[in-house]
């Protein structure tokens, strides 16, 4: 059997066959993890905002991946919330700058099955093309009631185009004093920042030497 001959010693150590069989397992036999939506708090006391997704088997793993993905660089993270994509209730998205709150009426709430009184978190899309931003929390007996309560609590002069509603109990929250150690070393990783690679002096000196 012959192996891939690479310039990279690590690849040579893997002994990768130079020819593969034709078949590769179909997607169905493979391993599509579910997705989690990740919200990042850029600074203490600032609102959480949606940053993207991670694929993970559990919410704890989702947090670890989210930390690697969305807080690699200094001073831009002081908390992360992780929410399973299917746990987020989504309103329709409005057209022509209309406020989504104008579409929420009492009937929506009254038509819904009532559960226990629970805490919900509300995220609003205030600008098309930007991220959903955390508006605040409220209590409700159903997601529909949460929409109605959100209208009373968060509707303002500026229209919101889309709402995400999530039961507080399903959110994995890594934030606050208890977890502050996690972000402590971020500012030390200067080698990750463009600022750490100044070279103007070196070029200047080189040019002067060339002239001389």
């Amino acid at each position, binding site marked *: 059997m012959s192996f*891939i001959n*690479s*310039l*990279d*010693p*690590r*690849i040579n150590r*893997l002994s*990768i066959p*130079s020819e*593969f069989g034709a078949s*590769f*397992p*179909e*997607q169905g036999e*493979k*391993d*599509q*993890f*579910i*997705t989690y*939506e990740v919200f990042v708090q850029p600074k203490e006391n600032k609102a959480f905002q*949606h*940053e*993207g*997704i*991670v*694929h993970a*088997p*559990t919410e704890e*793993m989702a947090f670890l991946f989210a930390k*690697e*993905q969305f807080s*690699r*660089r200094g001073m831009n993270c002081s908390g992360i919330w992780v929410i*399973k*994509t*299917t746990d987020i209730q*989504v309103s329709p*998205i409005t057209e022509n700058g209309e406020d989504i709150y104008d579409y929420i009426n009492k009937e929506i709430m009254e038509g819904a099955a009532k559960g226990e009184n629970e805490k919900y978190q509300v995220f609003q899309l205030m600008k*098309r*093309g*930007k*991220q*959903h931003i955390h508006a605040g929390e409220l209590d409700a007996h159903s997601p529909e009631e949460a929409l109605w309560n959100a209208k009373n609590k968060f509707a303002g002069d500026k229209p919101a185009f*889309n709402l*995400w509603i999530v039961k507080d109990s399903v959110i994995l929250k890594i934030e606050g004093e208890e977890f502050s150690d996690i972000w402590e070393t971020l500012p030390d*990783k200067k*080698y*990750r*920042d*463009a600022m*750490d*690679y100044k*070279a103007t002096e*070196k*070029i200047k*000196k*080189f040019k002067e030497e*060339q002239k001389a």
Partner: protein
Amino acid sequence: MYGGGQVFEPSSTNNDLLKDEDPKKLAEFEARIARGEKIEPKDWMPKLYRKQLIRMIEQHGHSEIIGALPEGTWITRAPGFKRKLALMAKVQDEVGHAQLLYGAAETLGKSREQMIQDLITGKSKYSNIFNYPTFTWADSCFISWLVDAGAIVNQLANARGSYGPYCRALDRICAEESFHLKYGHHCVIHLATGTPKQREMMQEAVNRWWAPMMHFFGPSDKISTHTEILTKWKVKMATNDECRQQFLDMYVPKIWELGLTIPDENLKRNEQTGEWEFTEPDWEEFKRVINGDGPCNKERLAVRRTAEERGAWVRRALASKTKGEEYVAPMA
């Protein structure tokens, strides 16, 4: 990192896809884009728009993953601890970018597993430049500085496009690329202003990489298919030639000021037109390498495939924790 030169399908298929669209919805969609608004995953969009975006974002994601390989090669042999730290951080960024991009493509309805499958089986493409080998440390410096510089030209253009999730991913990516660019420049300056041996090493890398770098932005507008509709829909934001010209304008002077030469005696800026003139790149070679016959195509895919196969047991073990929950497309 990303190269242009996406191979779009012939326009006859495009027209087929377009003719079934509801004209009223299409008009609203185009009006939204004309107003400068972003399209979001739940918005109505033409099939052709969805298809081209998936192809483009997916290809971009694959380029990040495969692009990490020629640079990753040099992590173990980086000259010194500081360079090793930086290169590890950069390679981690690139893989992270792929995750962001796959996430954006997923909002359009293609699963990440399917994209990985299509990469490994050779169905999807990635940036051609990563099919060339990094013989020396200087090659990896060339990539960090100039291939990333080319990628930034492309990505800044695309970040002004119409699809919300792609633009948001690109904003995040471009912010990190500024570190790559500065780090890469720092490495090249160090070699170019160093000992005669270091200078020679850097010059050789420039000689090796110049042709692939000119290919990077894709075939000249003269010979590539124009797709006006993709420009109108803000899927393609700048032509291959526009990106190439912008790159030359920004970086040729920076290469020259380090006393390095560029292996193209026809390369010069035409003072009257403001355009750069150069020897036409060998587009036959470009096509040949894209179609699989480059120095590293086989190795790149074999490495990716091996990682997928040998890591399968870890993912299976983890998947047993998911309690059979079903995958749905992510939100934004």
